[in-house]
């Protein structure tokens, strides 16, 4: 068959139409980039350094699974020092240097998410996950591109307060750090407590690190609260507060939210200062990593972690913080893949639409069952209690939905 120019063009056009126009309208990039800011230095450095390997693992895992419709994906992580402005600068730098190849971003704090939210418009918009469960972000009307990979802090507070009510508690104290993250659910928690008939006897603000422990503990002691919810801490302050209260012999029961529920920290405290975390409980959106029986995805992670992190503490156990980031990346990856497979271009608007439409998705074990994105958040969680003997957090409630 001889082919002249006209026939060639005609055939190509037909082939194009058959394959789907978007494929050639825009040249397929060699790789997609997802940028990330992590607090590798600063007050939450411990968390950042535990999370950083998740990106290496996720990159290998996702690319082994075929990337985004055949295109490999690459993560570019940078340090933010837990300073929102640095995260923003990192994002703007990534945007300026990777252009449209940058398809998503992982931010590292409530502050950074809020600082970046208004920047996400037009050509500068990207879908954005984070380490934050800030309540303000769980609202597609105002934050269409940002999502929360679990229940918001407000929902976590609701779970805790209802739990306290169910146990017959009457008075509760809120101790929180003077950060966006610490302050996030306080007003809401106050309202919920009032609705449930719980009395908030103390609202105490502390520094996020280097807080004056004796003063705060004396205030807690003077308030005589039965329960105390700690919010806005990662590695420091909350254990010292509990330690101080135990040394005073206060009967106060302590409760925490996601960031205060890490086994590594709890174990370290037990080892250094004794078993005073006995009876400490808190909300956790995910399964812990040792609970792998019903979690096929965790088993895959365990295989990868065993190979990639051999000889490091991550070989056997992934921290809850690492899991949170993995969950955020899984959501981003699913969104990218679904959008690409549906033949849409990977613009922020298309991605945001796919993201908001995720429903009945089996995450392979992160949560108790299939989940849906409601208001760009996943409203499920479970209460766990720490056992210093075994060093495990054991569930004390079933999976709760909020």
């Amino acid at each position, binding site marked *: 068959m001889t082919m002249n120019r006209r026939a060639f063009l005609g055939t190509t056009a037909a082939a194009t139409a058959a394959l789907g126009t978007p494929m050639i309208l825009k040249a397929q990039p060699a790789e997609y980039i997802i940028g990330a800011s992590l607090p590798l230095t*600063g007050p939450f450095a411990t968390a950042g350094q535990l999370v950083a390997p998740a990106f290496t693992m996720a990159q290998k895992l996702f690319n082994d699974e075929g990337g985004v419709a055949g295109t490999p994906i690459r993560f570019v992580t940078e340090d933010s020092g837990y300073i929102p402005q640095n995260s923003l600068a990192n994002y703007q730098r990534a945007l300026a240097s990777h252009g449209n190849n940058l398809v998503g971003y992982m931010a590292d704090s409530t502050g950074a998410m809020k600082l970046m939210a208004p920047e996400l418009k037009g050509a500068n918009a990207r879908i954005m996950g984070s380490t934050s469960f800030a309540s303000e972000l769980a609202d597609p009307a105002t934050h269409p591109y940002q999502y929360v990979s679990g229940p918001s802090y407000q929902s976590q507070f609701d779970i805790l307060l209802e739990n306290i009510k169910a146990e017959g508690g009457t008075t509760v104290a809120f101790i929180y750090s*003077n950060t966006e993250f610490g302050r996030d659910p306080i007003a809401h928690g106050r309202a919920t407590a009032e609705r449930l008939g719980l009395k908030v006897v103390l609202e105490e*603000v502390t520094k996020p*690190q280097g807080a004056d422990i004796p*003063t705060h503990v*004396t205030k807690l*002691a003077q308030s005589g609260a039965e329960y105390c919810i700690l919010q806005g801490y990662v590695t420091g302050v909350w*254990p*010292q507060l509990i330690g101080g209260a135990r040394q005073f012999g206060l009967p106060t029961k302590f409760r925490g939210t996601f960031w205060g529920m890490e086994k590594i920290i709890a174990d370290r405290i037990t080892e250094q200062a*004794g078993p005073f975390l006995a009876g400490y409980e808190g909300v956790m959106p995910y399964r812990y990593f040792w609970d792998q029986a019903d979690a096929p995805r965790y088993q895959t992670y365990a295989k990868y972690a065993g190979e990639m992190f051999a000889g490091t503490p991550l070989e056997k156990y992934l921290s809850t913080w690492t899991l949170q980031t993995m969950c955020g990346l899984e959501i981003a990856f699913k969104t990218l893949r679904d959008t690409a497979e549906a033949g849409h271009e990977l613009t922020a608007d298309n991605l945001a639409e796919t993201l908001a439409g995720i429903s009945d998705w089996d995450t392979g074990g992160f949560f108790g069952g299939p989940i849906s994105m409601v208001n760009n958040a996943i409203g499920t969680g479970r209460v766990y209690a720490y056992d210093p003997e075994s060093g495990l957090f054991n569930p004390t409630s079933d999976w709760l939905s909020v």
Partner: protein
Amino acid sequence: MGQFLQFAINGLMSGAIYALIAVGIVSVYKATKVVNFAHGYLIMFGAYFYFTFAVIVPQAAWAPAWLASWQPDWLVAAKADAPMFSPLGAVLDWVSNLPRIILGISGAVIANALLGRLVERTLMRPLMGQSIFAMIMVTVGLISILSGASSIIWTADAAFVPHIAPNTPVRFSIGDTMIFLFGADLVNMVIALLLFGGIVLWVRYTKSGIAIRATAEDQSTAYSMGISVPKVFSRAWVLACTTGAIAGAILATRNGVSPTLGLFGFSVLAIVLLGGLDSYVGVFIAAMSVGVLEAMTQWKLGGEWAEIVPYVAVLLVLLVRPHGLMGSKEVERI
């Protein structure tokens, strides 16, 4: 009333620590006329050194087991009898921590003294005779260097450091309110006050103390009278850094080891100016009153308000008394 007393005592306890920090700033100023903006960061290094020698070193694989936790038979037996979180239990815990506390304190003091000497030789001595502006700004530059260096060297931030004294709770009631105090805090206060008093006496009555005062009076005259001014300089810096190391260790047990300890330097700087830069007595009064005021603010208005107490106080006092409560007036010649 009971509540008032509770917070007044809290305030005096933190005031004593402020005084211990302030003594370093005042001594350096007296000897060298340099006001050290980076003193808070030297204290932070003291805290990190204490953490290194009291936590990291004893946990190292090569360290003997008794260093991390000293468990002679009689102690194990006594511990088995004592209930958890009881006063006796706290004392016994302290006894088994004693080896690493001693190592921690002495390590921190020595390491910080070396650091002080290093800073003095490389940065401060070239500045002898320079303008006030240059001296202030060099210590400001030192802030960045110290805080950057600390975050490269140390990363752990969740660690507990052992209390210097047994942390037995002290509880008694006045009227119908219960007063809660930590034993360790009371001992810390006593340590801080003893050190402060000791340094004041040392500067007043010993030969090297008199050399510091002579240098403060007039550098060149002191030099020509046979006092080695460079030696006075380094002695003052070493003194500031060793007291700083102990203050750092105390702060580490109270507030945890973290880079924010450096910020204490700024509020103490405000306290020092409030009291009068070259007056130990003025600074002591200022430290104690700011401590109590802070505790009262903490009680009535909450934690955030307490943070600005020293700054508001210093601004108000400077408007009325430009050289602080008891500082000597500078005489300027045209």
